[in-house]
Every structure is written in structure tokens, then in C-alpha cells.
């Protein structure tokens, strides 16, 4: 990738927000696009992203060395994109550090653009928090609507920050998948990219190969259901990445047809 490289910071202030799922989607998207993203898992207590991607670096933000491992690498000029899974446990420390070291300025000096992908729960506090993050850091910001979190309650309509973020130009939406299928996808042995390749029409495994393939034990119908969720989700990630790249006047990633 030429031009600016992206440091995608997938963040949520709450547990069970789909933070790792979205970080994973970004990672899988870049992999399918032929990149080798540099991955960081910031949850030292219950690592998740690094279970899916063993090459992901586990950075314990409660330790200086962990902070250095992450924040000294993020602003470095690299052709490959970087993806950080900032779970609720490291959320506050992460942003305090990011503010104190002025990560955005340092990254921009090296032609790296931090992109905050913010996943709020539908509460006034979360929208207020997201709004403050966007205003304070002034880097690229993506509001992620995760359908798994349900619809926005009416009470939010009186919250200014809700409307401010609703009007934000870059959104991404993750649609709903039934619970059982999601549980299957959360199996740490499952690579979304591999699953997509293997379940593509005309890519049926030869005899004997079946057990090697991700979710090969599922019925065709069940696999189709997952595939029907995964493809638009990856396309949504692609659309978001390309939108950010366009906003930054940087070359757009080669489009993929998932």
C-alpha cells in the first residue's frame, strides 16, 4: 500500500460489544486483500484477538514494556496496516496513553493515520464518550453500529452527542447473525478468510480433505447462512477502508469481490 498507512484502533468501552469481532473482520479483510496486517491484542487478562491470530502481539498496557511494544510500533511507517483490538479492559489506559504521548501527531509525522473505530452501546454516556474522543484526537473516526447490540432507544434522541455522531460521515454497520452461527464463528480455530475461500461455490473439498476445512462439519445450509453474513460484513469493512483512504487522499486498496 502506498501513501498513508492506517493504524486501525478498534475500541469499545464495554464488554460484549463485538470489539474483537470487528478487529477480526478488519484483519481478515486485509489478509484477503493480500496484505499482512500487523496485529495487536491489548487484553492481557483475557486475550482474544491473539487466539485467532497467533502472530498478533499481546501488549499489556499496565506495563511500561507493553505500552512501548504497542505505542512505539503504531506510529512507525510501514506498508502494512496495523490493527489494534482495544477491549473494554484496556479502553481507558489506551486513550490516556494515546493522549499523553500525542500518538496522532507522531503517527502523522510518519505518514500513518490512526483510525478510531468506535463501538458504542446505545447509552448517552457512550455517545458522549465517543464524541469527546473524536473531538479531542481529531484523527479519522468511524462509528460502528453493531446490530448485535439492539436498536437505539428513544431516550437517546434527546442526547446531542448521539446526533453529532449519527451525523458523522464515516459509519460502518455490522448486521445480525443468529446466535448459533456466531458461536460457531467465534471458534478460535476458524479463520474467516479460509472459511470464505473454502465455502465459495466451486471450491468444494475433494474427498478426504473435508475435515481440514473450517466448519466443514456443518450442513450446506448452515455454511451458507454464515457465508451470507460474512461476505457483506467484509464488504462493509472494505467500503469503510476505502472511504477512509479517499478522505485521506491516499491510494485505495484493490477492490475484492467477496
Amino acid at each position, binding site marked *: 500500500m502506498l501513501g498513508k498507512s492506517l493504524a486501525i484502533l478498534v475500541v469499545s468501552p464495554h464488554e460484549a460489544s463485538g470489539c474483537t469481532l470487528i478487529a477480526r473482520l478488519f484483519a481478515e479483510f486485509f489478509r484477503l486483500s493480500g496484505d499482512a496486517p500487523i496485529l495487536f491484542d491489548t487484553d492481557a487478562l483475557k486475550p482474544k484477538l491473539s487466539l485467532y491470530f497467533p502472530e498478533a502481539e499481546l501488549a499489556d498496557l499496565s506495563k*511500561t*514494556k507493553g*505500552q*512501548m511494544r504497542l*505505542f*512505539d510500533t503504531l*506510529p512507525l511507517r510501514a506498508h502494512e496496516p496495523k490493527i489494534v483490538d482495544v477491549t473494554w479492559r484496556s479502553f481507558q489506559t489506551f486513550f490516556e*496513553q494515546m493522549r*499523553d*504521548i*500525542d*500518538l496522532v501527531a*507522531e503517527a502523522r509525522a510518519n505518514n500513518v493515520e490512526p483510525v478510531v473505530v468506535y463501538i458504542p452501546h446505545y447509552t448517552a454516556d457512550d455517545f458522549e464518550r465517543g464524541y469527546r474522543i473524536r473531538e479531542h484526537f481529531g484523527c479519522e473516526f468511524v462509528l460502528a453500529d453493531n446490530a448485535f447490540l439492539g436498536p437505539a432507544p428513544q431516550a437517546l434522541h434527546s442526547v446531542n452527542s448521539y446526533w453529532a455522531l449519527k451525523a458523522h460521515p464515516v459509519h460502518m454497520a455490522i448486521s445480525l447473525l443468529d446466535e448459533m452461527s456466531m458461536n460457531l464463528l467465534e471458534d478460535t480455530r476458524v479463520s474467516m478468510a479460509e472459511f470464505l475461500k473454502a465455502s465459495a461455490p466451486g471450491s468444494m473439498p475433494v474427498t478426504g480433505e473435508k475435515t481440514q476445512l473450517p466448519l466443514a462439519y456443518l450442513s450446506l445450509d448452515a455454511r451458507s447462512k454464515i457465508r451470507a453474513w460474512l461476505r457483506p460484513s467484509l464488504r462493509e469493512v472494505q467500503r469503510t477502508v476505502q472511504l477512509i483512504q479517499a478522505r485521506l487522499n491516499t491510494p485505495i486498496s484493490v477492490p475484492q469481490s467477496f
Partner: protein
Amino acid sequence: MAKEPKEASSKKSGSGKQKPAVIIVGADKGGVGKTTVARTMLDYFAGKNVLTRAFDTESPRGTLKRFHPRVTEVVDLTQVADQMRVLDTLHSSEVKVSIIDVRAGLLSRTLKDMTDVGFFDAVENGEFKFALFHVLGPSVASLSEIEDMLPYTENAEYYVVKNHINDTNFFEWDQATYDKYFRKTRRSANEIAIPKLNEMAYEQVEVAGVPFVSFGQNKNARNQKADYSLVLRGYVRTWEKGIHEQYDDTGLMEWATDGSQAS
């Protein structure tokens, strides 16, 4: 040739009728971080474009000089020649703010010597301004130093500096004892608390041998771009900013420059 940031380049406050200001940083206990405090102060004035000179009495080693070589002279204040180098040049020097980092254990002695040469008379007569930054350790013994210092601070600014840089929590700090010393003289002191700095960051600044501000700006001793950790730089910047805000709050800048430069 590269210049040390601002300290040697600014000319803003070096002239006019500004009264010379002498700031002594000292303690009678060793290892309480006097030089660290002096270093933050040099960065503070440099950041405000105030020309400052420093005297390091840790002769011959000169820790302060190691970090601020362009503005620091190593002197032995027990020697008449060096007393003259410092005090006789106060009026003539273009630099109106002088910081003296007094070697561990020599604070009382230095103040006495300065009394003998008439420095405090000159302060009383309004020829010079004087501030004492008294760096305290976490022990009661350190508190008892306050009583010894008070006579020298009658016409001066007195700063009590609690240094937490080594993670000390002032376990023996006794507010009642502390207040007692000031009640006697109906005086008060400006209080500065130097927070703890991340150990790894402190260590890296030591290794780099540059002012804290240069480290924060990723500059080496030649003022060229260095390769310090962004995280450690962030720690240093945040830490020093907090200290400088305290200096601002106590009006140090206005005092040192006779209010000629707003902070």
C-alpha cells in the same frame, strides 16, 4: 553548530531593569533529587524564553552540567574565587536569573557563607531577589531542616519541594510538625510536589544525558532528531508539564522576571 533549545538562544529578558534573581535549590539531606528539580526549572525558564544561568556546586563532577552544559558552570561555593564568580556577576550579567544547585549536605553551609559575604543584606536592600527551593526527603529529619532555613527566607520566596520521583510517599510526613515551623514565624511557603516519573523513562533520560525537555522533543545532545521511545517521551513530557504548571501556579515566572513576562 547546534544549539541547546532556547536556553542559549533567547534574548528576550536579558536586558532592562530587571532585578537579578538568585534561586538556590538545595537540601541538607542527600539523594532527595535536588538536581532533578534544578533541571526542571532550567527547562521551565527556557520554555518561557527567559535567559538563565546555572551553577552546579557538585564539584568536580557536575551532574547538572552534564544535562545543561551550555548554561551551567561547575563552582565550589566554599571558595572565595567561585563565590565572586557567582555573586559579583549578578549585576553585570546579561542573564538575570541564576540557579544554584547546591551539593548535598552543603545547603546550611552555603547559606551561611552567603550571609558572610553580605548577600542577604543585599537582598534586604532590594538589590537582588532570592528564592530558596528546599527539597525535602520523606523523613522527619528532613522536616526539621525547615527551621534552619527560615531565617534565610525573611526577604525571600521559600519553596518547600516534596520530591516523589523515587516513589517515596512521605511516610513520615507530619503535617502538624510541618505547620509548627511556619506558625512560629507566621510565614508560609510555596509548596511544590514533584510527582513520580516512570522509572524506565527516568533511566532513559539519564542515559541520553539531555534535558528533560529535549528528551520529550526527541532531540539528542546535539539538538538532532533522536530515536527515543514515544511512550517514554510521553511520560517525561506529561511529568514535566505537571511540574511546570505548579511553577506557574506559584507565580515563579512573574517573580523571576518582575512580571515583565507573562507566563
